[in-house]
């Protein structure tokens, strides 16, 4: 079945069509969600929520964007809304102040092999509202209009947040470089 047939099947209550649609998109949705939350259990929960909503709202999909983009926008929405409810996530939300106590950068003469790990850690430490556009744009390759659609914020705000995220990363890496 092609995508249109799958959609029609799901709208008719066809579980087989639902499963095929799920099989086609669940791996990338799970991957995206996991990258956003970094927790297998939460990733599983939000992926489930995503597809329950996708199947429940599929009649609202107008084909203005690719189905994959639409499903991912539902996933991002599930994560952003869900994370507000997840108290433990707050424990993961550190400001970049934690990066302050770092050694003197002048001792570093060559590119540090751990710089990639430091960059990943700095991304982890970004606030969710900054990390999301960075993840979607710089790591997942989405365009600003797509991110605006996914996150429900104006395109200009997405660009501003991306710039803010990058600025914080540069500061974090500069501080690290002082080691």
């Amino acid at each position, binding site marked *: 079945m092609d995508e249109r047939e799958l959609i029609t099947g799901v709208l008719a*209550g066809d579980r*087989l069509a639902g499963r095929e649609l799920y099989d086609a998109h669940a791996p990338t949705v*799970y991957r995206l969600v996991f*990258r956003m939350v*970094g927790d297998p259990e939460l990733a599983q929960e939000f992926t489930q929520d995503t597809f329950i909503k996708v*199947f429940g709202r599929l009649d609202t999909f107008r084909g203005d964007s690719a189905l994959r983009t639409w499903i991912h926008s539902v996933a991002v929405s599930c994560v952003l809304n869900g994370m507000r409810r997840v108290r433990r996530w707050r424990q993961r939300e550190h400001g970049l102040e934690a990066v302050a106590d770092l050694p003197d950068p002048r001792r570093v003469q060559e590119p540090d092999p751990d710089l*990639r790990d430091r960059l990943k850690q700095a991304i*982890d430490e970004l606030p969710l509202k900054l990390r999301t556009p960075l993840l979607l744009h710089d790591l997942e390759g989405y365009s600003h209009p797509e991110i605006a659609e996914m996150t429900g914020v104006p395109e200009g705000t997405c660009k501003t947040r991306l710039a803010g995220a990058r600025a914080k990363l*540069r*500061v974090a890496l500069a501080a690290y470089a002082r080691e």
Partner: protein
Amino acid sequence: MNEETEVNQPDEERLIEMLEDVADDYRLPPGDPPLDAMWATIEARAFPRAGGAKVLPLRTPWRRWLPLAATLAIGVGLGRWTVGSPSVTPPSVESGQEAAATAVRPVSYSTGDHPFAGVATDYLEQSTAFILTLTTEIRAGRPLRQSVPQARDLLATTRLLLDAPGARDQGLNNLLEDLELLLAQIVQLPSEAAPEANLIREALAQREVLPRLQLLLADAHPSY
């Protein structure tokens, strides 16, 4: 921000290069996504049973034939189906007494004129035995991962029965749907499942699955 920090910051182009470098391995899931386990929950919540098409959470092409196979299997006597594991024990007297002491929500189910009743009886017996065994395992604090394969088999059969044309009695359907949710929870158990075991114990108590099963069996099978 002082001058020294600014000097050591990577410029925008360099940062983007670094981000591209980590894009492929930043926060990747540790393994394959648990597609079947997630589907069990999604399917139960997104696809109402009544009038829905018949699909099992299997990823093999032959799943397309399972609804037909289910009908045939039921036709030739699914009652001979067994869980097939020596670890499943029959209901004990003690467990039966405990269940009788539990508040029972009666299932309105008449066996006399229901062609599906006899077919389902053995399956219900196996489900009862499995849940009694599970209750014992939880009470003893033993890990439940050995129960997962049996739960998976029972889950598949439960769905076959739910999708079967004969399963239209509302009380039986409700019970089967509760069983389906319970079994789906067990199938999703991680290897170390102590907290989840508590959740399953609570689910068993709240849904009164065991007393309802036993009441249904007593109704369908007077010698039980």
